[in-house]
């Protein structure tokens, strides 16, 4: 009754339709887009050149500094919370769980506003050490610690039980076995997910926008936005975006490599 296609014919038709659709969309965009306006708005070479070297020496540098300080603070706090989660003392476990639920459940932006605005208002005269850098490390680290704690806990639990037994039977105390035997192995397991967290933090450092920073403390997003409004042109935003990708794309690549290696090692 119906004309039946062979498998070969069916594949040809299916592929043909998909390619045709792709080409149609590309052509449509090319025809409809106002290329001159777009180029003027997003890719003015003269404007882009003016951004250098400041966009690298100040903005990208600050983004990196904010990210790393937030990561370091989050890692230490995350490790402590992970160990609390695994503690035999119930109140520690509860406190860790409450912390994790709270900080995973709130928008990072709210935490930033809390650190930047609410804390100085609530405790007049208190200064977070390190000025803006300290605030950013705190804001990023508080949130990151919640995620990293869960990652590290999973990593610790992924170390075979026999490792702790072997260490204990050699006379290691529980704590010393953790430090010398379990945690070093757990960190190997969690390096890929922690690197992923680093990528997330790198992007979240843009929330500094809401803290009110001096010119010298601007990071990529704020820098891009400020210059975009100064020049009434979007080119700085495009360049700032490229600067992010310059770091995040290689990092993501590294994560995939690490994950592939971890999968092979199993």
């Amino acid at each position, binding site marked *: 009754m119906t004309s039946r296609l062979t498998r070969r014919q069916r594949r040809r038709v299916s592929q043909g339709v998909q390619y045709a659709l792709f080409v149609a969309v590309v052509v449509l965009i090319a025809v409809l887009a106002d290329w001159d306006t777009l180029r003027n708005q997003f890719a003015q070479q003269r404007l882009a050149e003016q951004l250098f070297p400041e966009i690298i020496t100040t903005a990208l540098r600050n983004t990196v500094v904010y990210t790393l300080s937030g990561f370091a603070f989050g890692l230490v706090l995350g490790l402590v919370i992970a160990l609390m989660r695994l503690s035999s003392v119930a109140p520690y476990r509860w406190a860790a769980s409450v912390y994790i639920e709270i900080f995973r459940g709130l928008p990072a932006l709210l935490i930033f506003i809390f650190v930047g605005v609410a804390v100085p208002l609530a405790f007049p005269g208190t200064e977070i050490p390190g000025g803006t850098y300290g605030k950013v490390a705190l804001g990023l680290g508080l949130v990151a610690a919640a995620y990293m704690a869960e990652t590290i806990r999973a990593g610790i639990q992924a170390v*075979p039980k026999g490792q702790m037994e072997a260490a204990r039977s*050699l006379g290691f105390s529980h704590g010393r076995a953790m430090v010398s035997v379990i945690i070093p192995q757990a960190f190997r397991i969690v390096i890929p997910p922690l690197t992923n967290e680093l990528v997330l933090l790198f992007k979240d450092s843009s929330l500094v926008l809401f803290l009110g920073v001096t010119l010298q403390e601007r990071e990529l997003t704020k820098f891009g936005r400020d210059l975009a409004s100064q020049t009434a042109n979007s080119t700085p935003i495009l360049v700032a975006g490229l600067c992010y990708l310059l770091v995040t794309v290689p990092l993501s690549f590294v994560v995939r490599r690490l994950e592939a290696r971890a999968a092979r090692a199993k």
Partner: protein
Amino acid sequence: MKTSETEISIRGLHKSFGDNEVLRGIDLDVAAGEVVCVIGPSGSGKSTLLRCVNLLEEPTKGQVFVGGTEVTDLDVDIDAVRRRIGMVFQQFNLFPHVTAVENLTLPQRRVLRRGKEEAARVARENLVRVGLADKADAYPAQLSGGQQQRVAIARALAMGPEVMLFDEPTSALDPELVGDVLAVMRMLAAEGMTMMVVTHEMSFAREVADRVVFMDEGRIVEEGPADRVVGDPQHERTRHFLTRILDPAAAEPPGEGS
């Protein structure tokens, strides 16, 4: 048997996991320098018994003494007691993130507080004893199962234990690698080490053990010289078990009733 020479003494030992009573009253003495092999079907509680000796499992009831110290005493420094008891596991449990020689030096340095050079010297001596001096810098993953188990034995020996516990040390090994591990254990026995060995290697038990203990359902069913327990078992359950282990092909297909 309970003399000043007694190295391990187990009294009225019970162990339950929830409702499951795994050990139902074990009394056993091991003299200094004696080699005792514990045999029995799986689930008989022999591994649990061994793990109670260095308190990897906490007994529900009963006492365990090692070298005169009560291991089960709540006020005893268990880490100090465990330093005197070497343990070898079925799954080797080498630390995979460090090399073979570091597996030996790490516990010496962190637990015994030995200096770098002394730890390295003791590590090398013990790797030589198990015939793996040339593998010192290999990571566990680069070693065969038999080599890993010999490194694990060397790691325990480097702590200078007075007792060695072996929990099915050859059960996870390919058959052709079993011999090297048993050779190391035979050497230890000849040197006069006090050993408690949970094993299925009947030829090893017969040849090396001073005494064989047969366990079933959480109790010691039969014990005595290896020749008698393995060669001429007195109990029906021992006979049944040994027939199955020495000639697995002879087993009947599971009947309707069993």
